[in-house]
């Protein structure tokens, strides 16, 4: 699960991880008002205005009109996902920027051409930066340990650093039995070339960051950049926090952090029925039991000349309601020109699934060809049920035939 920067910073504050004073707003009026009351009036005349979207690369991102796609400017200056604003009339300028950002699209290296709509902004006090670093914590799947990574190459894509100069990334693995140790913090601080107050500030910072990561069941916590201010303290200038989906049951409060505007509407709908659905750009919808088989089916669709419109794992308990909902969601995607159902009956019986499909299709109107492939437990009975239903299915005997049928249907 992903959350916004402002939410991550709120959580970090609980663990006394230093972050700057900031305020989240949802309208341009609020932005102007907050700029004046919370910042200018308090003597702060440099404000950083940041788009709150889950995607990264905001600093270089461009803002586009929601309908015309026109790139947004304030005067001569192009509006970005992150804007540093200072000068005489800060509050008014913030308002001007907010008007152009909220409700419009941001396109970054991570959002692609379609972009993401900006629904909220973060105002944050400006700060003097002496140096930028990177700090991140992530699971190392190979060793089964959480690993802290820091680098002097802050504010740039860490994947790029890892590729081009891996020696610039310092790592410390956390021993599950001992926990993170002070000497590890020191080793990282020395490695970054820190000394004096900055070194001390870093040690405290990283220790608290680890505590936050572990307590919050994070799957990723990235501070990029982590900055050394001109006052000599370490501060999290940005924060990216993801949670382990398997641990969400331990943190009921995370439900409130979910921003469904960041999710594809069909995925939101699917999640209401516990369906594992991911929207893609293709033309062949697919409904499969099991994640691995679902991925393999998507691959097969592409090899057959089509392209998958979605990932959809209906899971083991494929009953009528589930299948009906799955169909409805899959078919609400206007790009879908054909549907492939691929079920391998193991524990779940094919005749039960077939029954579900037939009944579901009585509830949902389908105007595209439906290819059904059933194999495994009671496959024959299942196929008979489909044939006798009077509905126009294309029934495939095996995976190979299903692939051929997809090719035929896509070509037609």
């Amino acid at each position, binding site marked *: 699960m992903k959350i916004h920067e402002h939410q991550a910073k709120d959580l970090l504050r609980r663990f006394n991880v230093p972050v700057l004073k900031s305020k989240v707003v949802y309208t341009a009026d609020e932005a102007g008002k907050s700029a004046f009351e919370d910042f200018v009036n308090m003597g702060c005349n440099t404000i950083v205005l940041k788009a709150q979207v889950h995607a990264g690369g905001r600093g270089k991102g461009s803002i586009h009109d929601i309908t015309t796609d026109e790139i947004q400017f304030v005067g001569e200056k192009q509006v970005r996902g992150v804007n540093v604003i200072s000068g005489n009339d800060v509050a008014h300028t913030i308002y001007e920027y907010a008007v152009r950002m909220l409700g419009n699209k941001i396109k970054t290296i991570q959002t692609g051409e379609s972009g993401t709509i900006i629904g909220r902004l973060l105002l944050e006090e400006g700060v003097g930066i002496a140096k930028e670093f990177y700090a991140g914590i992530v699971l190392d799947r190979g060793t089964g340990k959480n690993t802290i990574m820091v680098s002097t190459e802050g504010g740039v894509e860490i994947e790029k650093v890892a590729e081009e100069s891996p020696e610039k990334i310092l790592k410390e693995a956390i021993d599950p039995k001992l926990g993170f140790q002070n000497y590890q913090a020191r080793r990282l601080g020395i490695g970054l070339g820190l000394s004096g107050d900055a070194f001390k500030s870093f040690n405290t910072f990283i220790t608290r960051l680890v505590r936050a990561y572990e307590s919050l069941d994070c799957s990723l916590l990235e501070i990029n950049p982590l900055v050394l201010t001109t006052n000599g303290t370490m501060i999290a200038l940005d924060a990216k926090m993801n949670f382990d989906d398997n641990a969400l049951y331990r943190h009921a409060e995370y439900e409130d952090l979910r921003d469904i505007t960041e999710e594809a509407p069909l995925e939101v709908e699917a999640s209401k029925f516990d369906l594992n659905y991911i929207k893609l750009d293709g033309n062949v919808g697919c409904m499969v039991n099991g994640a691995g088989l679902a991925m393999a089916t998507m691959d097969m669709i592409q090899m057959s000349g089509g392209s998958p419109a979605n*990932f959809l794992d209906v899971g083991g308990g494929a009953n009528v309601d589930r299948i009906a909902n799955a169909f409805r969601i899959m078919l609400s995607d206007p790009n879908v020109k054909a549907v492939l159902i691929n079920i391998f009956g193991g524990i779940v019986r094919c005749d039960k699934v077939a029954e579900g499909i037939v009944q579901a299709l009585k509830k949902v109107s389908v105007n595209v060809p439906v290819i059904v492939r059933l194999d495994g437990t009671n496959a024959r009975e299942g196929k008979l049920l489909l044939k006798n239903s009077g509905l126009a299915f294309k029934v495939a005997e095996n995976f190979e035939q299903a692939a051929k049928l997809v090719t035929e249907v896509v070509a037609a």
Partner: protein
Amino acid sequence: MSVLIDKKTRVIVQGMTGGEGTYHTSQMLEYGTKIVGGVTPGKGGTTFSGKGEVHFKKPVKVYDTVRAAVEAAKPDATIIFVPPPAAADAILEAIDSKIKLIICITEGVPVKDMIKVYSALKDSDSRLIGPNCPGLITPGECKIGIMPGFIHAKGNVGVVSRSGTLTYEAVKQLTDLNIGQTTCIGIGGDSIIGTQFIDAIELFNEDRETHAILMIGEIGGSAEETAAEYVKKYVKKPVIGFIAGRTAPPGRRMGHAGAIISGGKGTAADKTKALEEAGITVVMSPADIGKAVQEALSNAPKRRRRRKPGTKGKIGRPKATSKADKDMAEMS
């Protein structure tokens, strides 16, 4: 012969009296698996023979703790069907009771819990398969898992996979072509799993009855790449691979917790390349897995002796994790 389990393997079931546990215990008993006990705290001393529509073909004794079950029933293996919040604790209890082979079916175990389990495993002689896996089966002898038994056949192909139904698909393709299996191991779809590809492949490599190895991987992590390096160095038997998720978008979790391309790493293209460089035949279409294995078997030199005495792949063999760990630590 087979790896890890055979007709003599004695099995207990943790969480036997729950819904899933009951159903699958009955199925394992039907298959002929030697179920020698179940563990449900508070129900020790009773016997259990199913509930609702599920009836065991013979009653099974219930114990309060794994330790009690170990003392009384001397199991070689345990299979765990407990809900996610209690799953890690159940695995730790099995490790503490020194059970050599632990299979955890549960999907949804928090990563933080598995980090603890993984660390405890390394200090023990236990091997964990899973979590979030279908278990393992030696056709005709022993099934410790939830896979449909009837699609399997006894034979000479070792199967190892991160997936459930995709494995059934591949196994059925093999069986339909009259190609049987020595043992099929579902290692699970999570980020942290007890037994990795490299461990399973090492077992199959040392098993004389296994003539070819089929590995079914998917996007996410680098376990396939690590295994490929091992195959390149040590495996002379034909290895056939399939990687699911070529069409998966980056940054999205494809059902399995571990199936995610993150930071451009763990793509199907990278894995395919690593496998091919190791001399592994990579099948592109999931419809062709069976045929590819058939071809590899017919091209392989006939009746070649594999000599590696002393390592019969039985339960309790030292774990093959240390090398894998080192390799992967370097990679990440």
